[in-house]
């Protein structure tokens, strides 16, 4: 099925949130920008931008073959130079996170590939990559147990916990956290931390991230329903696309 490109802007700043300081940078997404993958998404959060694509379920190499579940693989490409050890670590974190969300036992003896390409890094690329990968998997149509939302937090130089900072705020950070939650019970799926922090700070960051993850889940719901409604409605009317978009842009999200 040919699906038209899709773009929705949602200003999370304007949402009426009960908790204070619960602000994520502006989230924006373009679905299926690529034609050769089964599903792809261009996900941006603030100035950070990643392109994710997925392929699967497809044939698997014999050494990776598993008779009980699908083999999941993730490739992370930095935009300059060869992948470093740190990039390999990110790759593993993303793969394990996505594997826990996928219903891999439904497709034994197959492989699911996830590719992530960094476009612009303005802090929080790992969280951005996980969110983008989740959208690509949703568009690619592989069965999932739940959707996942990743939120990035730091402890800044004044020992304060900051939710989803931009690159200026992150200068001199003491620690950084990435929390990933599932959409069902908002349970923690993945935690990835670096730096030195106190347990209290960790708990604060987790609470803030859990509340903020709802913004991302609402965004998923909105963009996916919009995408599918639109592909039913329109075949190739660009004019109609822009009309729909302008309506969506003016809407505000309620939590």
């Amino acid at each position, binding site marked *: *099925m040919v699906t038209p490109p899709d773009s929705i802007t949602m200003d999370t700043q304007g949402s009426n949130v009960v908790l204070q300081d619960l602000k994520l940078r502006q989230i924006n997404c373009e679905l299926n920008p690529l034609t050769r993958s089964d599903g792809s998404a261009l996900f941006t959060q603030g100035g950070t*931008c990643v392109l994710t694509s997925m392929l699967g379920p497809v044939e698997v190499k014999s050494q990776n073959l598993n008779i009980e579940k699908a083999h999941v693989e993730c490739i992370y*490409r930095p935009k*300059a130079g060869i992948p470093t050890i740190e990039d390999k670590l990110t790759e593993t974190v993303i793969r394990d996170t996505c594997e826990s969300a996928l219903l891999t036992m439904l497709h034994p003896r197959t492989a699911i590939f996830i590719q992530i390409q960094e*476009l*612009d890094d303005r802090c929080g690329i790992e969280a951005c990559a996980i969110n983008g990968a989740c959208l690509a998997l949703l568009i690619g149509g592989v069965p999932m147990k739940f959707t996942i939302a990743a939120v990035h937090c730091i402890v800044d130089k004044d020992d304060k916990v900051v939710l989803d900072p931009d690159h200026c705020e992150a200068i001199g950070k003491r620690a950084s956290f990435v929390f990933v939650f599932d959409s069902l019970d908002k349970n923690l799926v993945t935690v990835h931390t670096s730096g030195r922090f106190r347990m209290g700070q960790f708990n604060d960051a987790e609470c803030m991230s859990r509340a903020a993850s709802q913004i991302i889940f609402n965004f998923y719901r909105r963009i996916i329903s919009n995408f599918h409604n639109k592909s039913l409605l329109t*075949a190739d009317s660009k004019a109609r696309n822009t009309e729909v978009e302008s309506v969506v842009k003016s809407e505000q999200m309620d939590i």
Partner: protein
Amino acid sequence: MRETPLSTIERNFITQAVKQNLRLDGRKNDEFRKVTINFGADWGSALVALGETKVLAQVSCELGVPKSTRPNEGIIYINVELGQMAAPHFESGRNSELNVQISRTLERTFKDSRCVDLESLCVTSEERVWLLRIDLNVLNHEGNLIDCCSIAALSALLHFKRPDVSIIDNDVHIHSAAEKEPIPMVLHHYPVCVSYCLFDDGRLAVADPSASEERTADSALVFGLNSFRELCCLNLGGTTLTSSTLLLQCATRAARRAKFVVDYVKETLEFDKNAREDNKNTGFTECVRLNQITALAENRLSLRLRNFKMQETNESKKDNEMETSGNEDESEEEDSDAQKNVVAIDSKSALLESNQSNIKWVPDDDDAESNVESMCSENVADEGDESERSLSQQVEKQMRKFSKKESKRELSRKHLQHDASDSEEETKVIL
């Protein structure tokens, strides 16, 4: 994953259509796809789309030791990455034949033509020079990767700024962008690649081939040209070219295309520079917000009807459904069926309207043939034009070399002469 084989029926369809000056995406044989360039937030990052083919380029630099043979010149390294994102059958980390071909062609176009002023990259002779690295990540492969990569590399090079350095007590200090304004690159000339695919035993040339056309074609022809109509690289792969007139004619058209592309790159760079000066947000995020990145994908139908255009009527919904059924991943056979369907609807319900006054689905045969002939005569007629003649002479010399060496595959030479007399002298030396 293995590449899906192209069936005989698909091949036959493409070759037959090309002979009638028809292509699946609605272009004529000599038409190119639209180029779109977006710049990232960092210096030296560009996302270039040629139709649906997309390439991300990033230029980076670090200090290093120069080659002992060239102690006062910087070094350029070009890396092409064909990952699974580009197409399912590519494997990252493995050097495929296509990968080597693209990087060699780009090296000849950018390094061997000496378009970058390497001496300006020298910090201290024999000790420290800038090592420039151009990373080309292919995001989507819909044919003609070489053209797309070359445009991406050129735009990224022109966009790139390296940090300023100062030497204090034999110690190199690299200034951040806040301390000292970064220095833009110095380029002597702006080369790009323009490729053609040859069909019908080298009698027909198809510009800017799509992925399926590339796989069907007899041979591929790549010109590396700059905006001064100078040839930097010529690559002929596949079976041998049979007509020299076709080569000359392609070269003339390629030169025109190269000029257009370079002008477009300059224009977008100027636009980006102004946006930065006005302190507007730049980068890919902004492009997504303005819906620029897929704006080129006006609709996702690879099948377009050139001679017919859709007419909006009450029944158009039914018609739209017909069109969406022409999935781009489906075989050409089905596509051809879809075309017939649409034509049939035309005769019954008149939903489709012809662009031309007389309705004809297949263009005149002599139209396709005259395509070749008129181009030849045009080339001869234009002999008076100095620049065009110098280009054709350059190509003729390449041809002579081809016949001399009697090699049938992948022959190329670099030519960088500013006028015809120079190139003649050099040919004498070589011959």
